[in-house]
């Protein structure tokens, strides 16, 4: 049954769906109070950010003579916001739609989703942690949140734990040794995981993370997991100990809600990472595209020291509506609209 029909039959359902508008209003009022600019970033773009793990939606832009140009649906407003920070914008955010293909299955994804990204200039990732704490307090309208019968105390400061400490605590892995590929392989095999020749370090790391660490995070109190290995740095600045990057994610009840970086500002290093991502896209057989040279140009002019985060708004809504699937908070979930089988 379509959602509109379900609501027509049970008007009590409206409350669950109205959580979204409250969340959006609260986000806007939080950033207005913090004197941020809200930026409308484009959704139809010529170059998606270089990210090998994402599948993009590709489409075609036609001129009056039907001459085609490749176009894509944005996977994140990050690059647009960073160019404007180069131009001198200062603190800014975007609350927009983003698109990721091949994400039709599962309770925590919709191929079209709402993302909140905000950036603070002359700030580091510890400043963004404080934003997360304050924003969640505003969204919950108090210090307590009940999710799936679990009481979450939102009072700052939240638990802060490094990836290395979390691996030690929950998976009994010595991360200093785990950086070595042969050791990582041995650790994974001893734990009973299947390790094949072509498995990457990132796969071994993430399989242990997903099976043994992730679900333990954010119970009773949100957890900020920080200082990720450089292999999953994406566009984060490396730390002085270059095995690690300035990146954090925050979790509530085992659910990942946001991903933050101390932003990489070096154009040369950025180009290296883009080249690597493009090679990965080819190796993995994903929809290929050219990365955005204009973004490299912007980085050469100079991105100020800044830190920013992407937060999945649909997951926030799901958390506050106390449901276990984001489809239950969308009037028109993709699975229902396209008649896809929901697992």
């Amino acid at each position, binding site marked *: 049954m379509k959602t509109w029909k379900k609501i027509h*039959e*049970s*008007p*009590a*359902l409206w409350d669950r769906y109205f959580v979204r508008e409250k969340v959006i209003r609260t986000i806007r009022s939080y950033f207005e109070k913090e004197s941020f600019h809200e930026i409308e970033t484009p959704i139809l773009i010529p170059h998606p950010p270089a*990210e090998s*793990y994402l599948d993009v939606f590709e489409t075609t832009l036609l001129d009056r003579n039907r001459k085609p140009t490749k176009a894509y649906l944005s996977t994140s407003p990050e690059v647009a916001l960073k160019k404007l920070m180069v131009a001198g914008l200062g603190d800014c955010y975007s609350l927009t739609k983003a698109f990721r293909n*091949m*994400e039709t*299955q*599962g*309770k*925590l994804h919709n191929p079209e989703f709402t993302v909140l990204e905000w950036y603070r200039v002359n700030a580091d990732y510890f400043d963004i942690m404080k934003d997360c704490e304050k924003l969640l307090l505003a969204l919950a309208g108090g210090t307590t949140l009940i999710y799936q019968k679990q009481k979450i105390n939102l009072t700052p400061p939240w638990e802060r734990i490094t990836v290395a400490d979390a691996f030690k605590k929950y998976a009994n892995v010595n991360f200093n040794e785990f950086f070595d590929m042969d050791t990582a392989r041995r650790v994974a095999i001893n734990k*009973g995981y*299947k390790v*094949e020749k072509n*498995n*990457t370090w*990132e*796969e071994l790391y*993430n*399989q242990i*993370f*997903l*099976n043994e660490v*992730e*679900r333990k995070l954010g119970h009773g109190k949100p957890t900020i997991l920080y200082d990720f290995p450089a292999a*999953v740095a*994406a566009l984060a600045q490396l730390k002085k100990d270059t095995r690690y990057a300035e990146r954090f*994610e925050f979790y509530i009840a085992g659910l*990942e809600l946001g*991903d933050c970086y101390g932003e990489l500002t070096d154009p040369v290093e950025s180009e290296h990472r883009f080249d690597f991502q493009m090679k990965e896209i080819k190796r*993995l057989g994903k929809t290929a595209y050219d990365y955005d040279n204009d973004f490299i140009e912007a980085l050469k002019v100079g991105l100020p020291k800044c830190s920013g985060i992407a937060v999945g708004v649909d997951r926030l809504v799901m958390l506050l509506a106390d449901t276990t699937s984001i489809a239950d908070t969308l009037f028109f979930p993709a699975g229902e609209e396209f008649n896809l089988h929901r*697992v």
Partner: protein
Amino acid sequence: MGTISTADFTKSTFVEFKGEPHQIVEFQHVNPGKGSAFVRTRLKSLKTGKVQEFTYKSGESVTEVPVATREMQYLYKEGDNYVFMDNTSYEQFNISSAMLGNYVNYLKPNDVYQILVNGDEAVGLRFPKKVRLKVTEATDGARGNTVSGATKTVVVETGAVVTVPLFIREGETIAIDPETGAYVERA
């Protein structure tokens, strides 16, 4: 025993996990932030009925366990076991309540069910998405009350208690989702 990939997973795939046969009862594709693809599963042990989670690397090869489906008639309950009979061979099979989980509430003696067999052991039951059962006890729901969302509880012929809309009356047949026990529709 054959080898399959995570891409072949369905809700009725049977795999070897830690040396024991398991049924994949739930699976979803997940991407950790800035990471490659994984498949998160809930696996039910065919020996103990215990369910646990495991996340596979996308594309990982997994050993499949052969499981056949045979039509059998449900006879009776004996202690903690439910006894089924293959009407062609007259062989009898026991399935424990742990293996049947929620489904035990909707079994009707003499009805025929799809039984999953691994080797010479019955390991589960493939229930339809909906089971139709007669309501045997119902209080009179406020007649003509059409306020949506209002519910009451009724008892169906297997003894299970089901939450239904007010308009359902004794003697009617209703459809229930045996996995969740939720009322689906008036049958």
